[in-house]
């Protein structure tokens, strides 16, 4: 018995030592290569650049990495270690690298801006930008107006560079145009949410097996319904996602969104839709996304935020159905609309100068941007005209050697990106115009520092996760559940968050007036 035990742990430890050694081997290899290089050529600084990709991630990135390095070493004398992660593990991989002290120079926030800042995980950039990021600042000024960096500035330090793309995401109803035709309804009748129930009823009557309205998003605070309410009623969430401290309109008063009439009416509307049978029974818990429902032909429509007018074409190609969209509510520009996708330089980076140089190139160099997005010309894509590309003969997004292009919403400046063949170029211009024209919240630039109320935030998050999905999907009775929800929020310390936010907002407003 004892011998067996020893043998077992011996074997186990051998396996573990083996895997440890091999892991270390891989690591030390890259670092020694890096340090060797910097010693040889002092000017070629090496940085790690992590990009999330919503597309298939190729096994071998070396060709594209080499192409990127060819551009960057020539232009700015920086070598880039290029990493691609799927959207699901991106944040985890980055957080792990930051926490363990592994090299990670440039990464994007994916909605965690104030989180990274409050833990001092990111480096302030305001001193480096004037020298190494002149063109970058110029292009942001041109496309957004001069105050865009306010949304990534805390206590006078610029912590991130917002992505330069169409950021105004008005709420669209996305629907299957063939089904709408079958139901005998004209698309012109859809102008606002009030027009939707009649459309759903017609679809349900004609196509009883089809679910008229798709389920909610996976993340409870990021549902089509919540986003619609934000845009239609000018709700500023003030940079956290709980919804406990928001300002509705411009009166400067921080309130609990879930106690407001805007919320109650929205939920009541969804409850009516649910009772009328326009949603699935298990919307609150299903893991099937609305997009999957529509592409399988079982769903008719859902709400989503999209910029530009060419979404229908893109989605049609993606889901294989005839998809059209109709805008039904405007977008409301608040701080987190901008800083939720922001490039940051880690505070542990030893090459901040090189990192800013690279960011500068990332926003201004057409060649670099498109190499990152589409890969190598002739192999991964073919050029059609000045602005458009297509896949090589007989290949598609799944079979070309390299493509990260669906992350085009994340890299650099959209106006310098190629578009896929068939997308109207004027749409890119429209998006940039809308960035400037869309109504901004008067609190644009305010960032809530959660440090004082961390424990309340964690408790409140839990309550929101518990109640919100069932409410926004209409599957419970709003009358009693909203009251329960709010009393649970109160228990969790919602008032502390509201008070802390109000105080910070008042201070911020006072500072703005000076």
């Amino acid at each position, binding site marked *: 018995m004892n011998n067996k035990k*020893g*043998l077992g*742990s*011996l074997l*186990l*430890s*051998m396996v*573990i*030592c083996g895997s440890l050694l091999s892991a270390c081997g891989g690591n030390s290899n890259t670092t020694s290569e890096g340090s060797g290089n910097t010693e040889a050529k002092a000017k070629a600084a090496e940085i790690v650049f992590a990009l999330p990709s919503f597309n298939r991630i190729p096994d071998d990135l070396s060709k594209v990495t080499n192409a990127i390095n060819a551009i960057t070493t020539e232009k700015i004398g920086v070598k880039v270690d290029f990493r691609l992660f799927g959207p699901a593990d991106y944040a985890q991989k980055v*957080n792990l690298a*930051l*926490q363990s002290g592994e090299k990670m120079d440039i990464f994007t926030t994916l909605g*965690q801006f104030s*989180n990274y800042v409050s*833990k*001092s*995980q990111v480096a302030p950039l305001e001193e480096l930008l004037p020298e190494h990021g002149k063109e970058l600042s110029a292009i942001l000024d041109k496309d957004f107006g001069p105050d865009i960096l306010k949304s990534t500035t805390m206590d006078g330090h610029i912590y991130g560079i917002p992505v330069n793309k169409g950021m105004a995401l008005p709420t669209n109803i996305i629907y299957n145009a063939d089904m709408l035709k079958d139901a005998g309804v004209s698309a012109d009748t859809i102008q606002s949410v009030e027009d939707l129930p009649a459309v759903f009823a017609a679809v349900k009557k004609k196509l009883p097996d089809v679910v008229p309205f798709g389920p909610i998003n996976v993340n*409870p605070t990021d549902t089509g319904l919540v986003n619609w309410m934000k845009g239609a009623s000018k709700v500023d969430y003030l940079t956290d*996602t709980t919804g406990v401290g928001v300002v509705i309109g411009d009166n400067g008063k921080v309130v609990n969104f879930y106690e407001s009439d805007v919320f109650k009416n929205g939920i009541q509307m969804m409850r009516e839709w649910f009772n009328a049978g326009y949603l*699935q*029974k*298990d919307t*609150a*818990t299903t*893991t099937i996304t609305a997009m999957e429902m529509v592409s399988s032909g079982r769903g008719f429509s859902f709400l989503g935020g999209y910029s530009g007018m060419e979404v229908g074409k893109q989605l049609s190609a993606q889901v294989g159905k005839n998809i059209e969209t109709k805008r039904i509510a405007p977008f409301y520009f608040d701080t987190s609309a901008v800083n939720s996708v922001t490039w940051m330089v880690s*505070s*542990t980076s030893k090459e901040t100068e090189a990192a800013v140089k690279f960011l500068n190139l990332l926003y201004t160099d057409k060649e670099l941007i498109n190499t990152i997005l589409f890969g190598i010309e002739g192999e991964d894509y073919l050029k059609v005209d000045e602005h458009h590309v297509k896949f090589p003969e007989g290949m598609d997004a799944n079979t070309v050697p390299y493509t990260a292009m669906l992350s085009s919403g994340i890299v650099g400046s959209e106006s310098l990106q190629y578009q896929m063949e068939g997308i109207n170029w004027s749409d890119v211009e429209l998006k940039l115009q809308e960035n400037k024209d869309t109504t901004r919240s008067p609190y644009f630039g305010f960032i809530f520092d*959660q440090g004082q109320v*961390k*424990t*309340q*935030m*964690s*408790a409140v*998050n*839990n*309550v929101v*996760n*518990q*109640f*919100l*999905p*069932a409410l926004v999907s209409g*599957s*419970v009775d709003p009358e009693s559940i909203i009251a329960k929800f709010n009393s*649970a929020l109160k*228990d*969790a*310390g919602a008032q502390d968050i509201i008070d802390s936010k109000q105080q910070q907002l008042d201070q911020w407003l006072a500072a703005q007036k000076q």
Partner: protein
Amino acid sequence: MIAKPKSKPLKKTLPLLILAGPGLLYFLINSYFPMFGVFIAFKDVNYAKGIFGSDWIGFKNFTFLFQTSDAWIMTRNTLLYNLAFIALGTIVSILIAILMSELLNKLYSKLFMTGLILPNLISMVVLSLLVFAFLNADSGFVNHSILRPLGIPEINWYSEAKYWPYLLVLIQIWKTAGYGSIIYFASIAGIDKSIYESAKIDGAGKLKQIRMITLPLLKPTIIVLVLMSMGRIFNSDFGLFYQVPMNSGALYSTTQTIDTYVYRALMQLNDIGMSAAAGLYQSLVGFALVLTVNAIVKKVNPENALF
């Protein structure tokens, strides 16, 4: 002076020590060195200052666990579920082991054993989909093929909290009991056959043999295994409580455990100080429980205590 008498046992044990070396090293690296990390639970981690330079904040990281009325619910759930798992799991495992040992046909016995271990090899994620296939509101097997044809009103399983205590216990037992029975089976196989023979001669039936011989001789094994699971009574299988109920908010009152609470609460905050605090809290309570139960066992029957 002391070295000489000591060198003799060392010579004897050296080969064993070398053999155990890698295993000890493994425990040292993976179980003991990380223990120094517990101080993170008392720090407000700030990466610019570094972990060692960050401010001490006392027990502030622990307060979030007790922030709400959820604190009571999750503690109750964690404890009661684990007690149910330990009690029912042990009973079912012993039952299986006894039945297996009475099965004289070697081939069948091996076959059943393999079949019983199989559920343990299924990952919780896959299992959650299996359960979903049964309980799904629209097309699930239970609603679609049992309740509907019988004319019984359908149940929306994923939004009715009251069914889940039974479901979760059932799922856990189904998954682990077969695997748990192996050790008991091995212990039963180790019992001297002559005891049974003499009992048979004395006229004891099968049931009496089990009651008077098998169970008393299994007692030390049972105690050791229960003691070991006591140490983890404040931890819960994350897959079972998070994946299987599909993270449905409506079920939190019966599916929320400390682990899932911590995970949900800290997903957005990404705060390692609080995570460390939660882990430390669970370990300390587990440690205390093991000591307590062991002390009780020692008092009742010193021979059966773990240490």
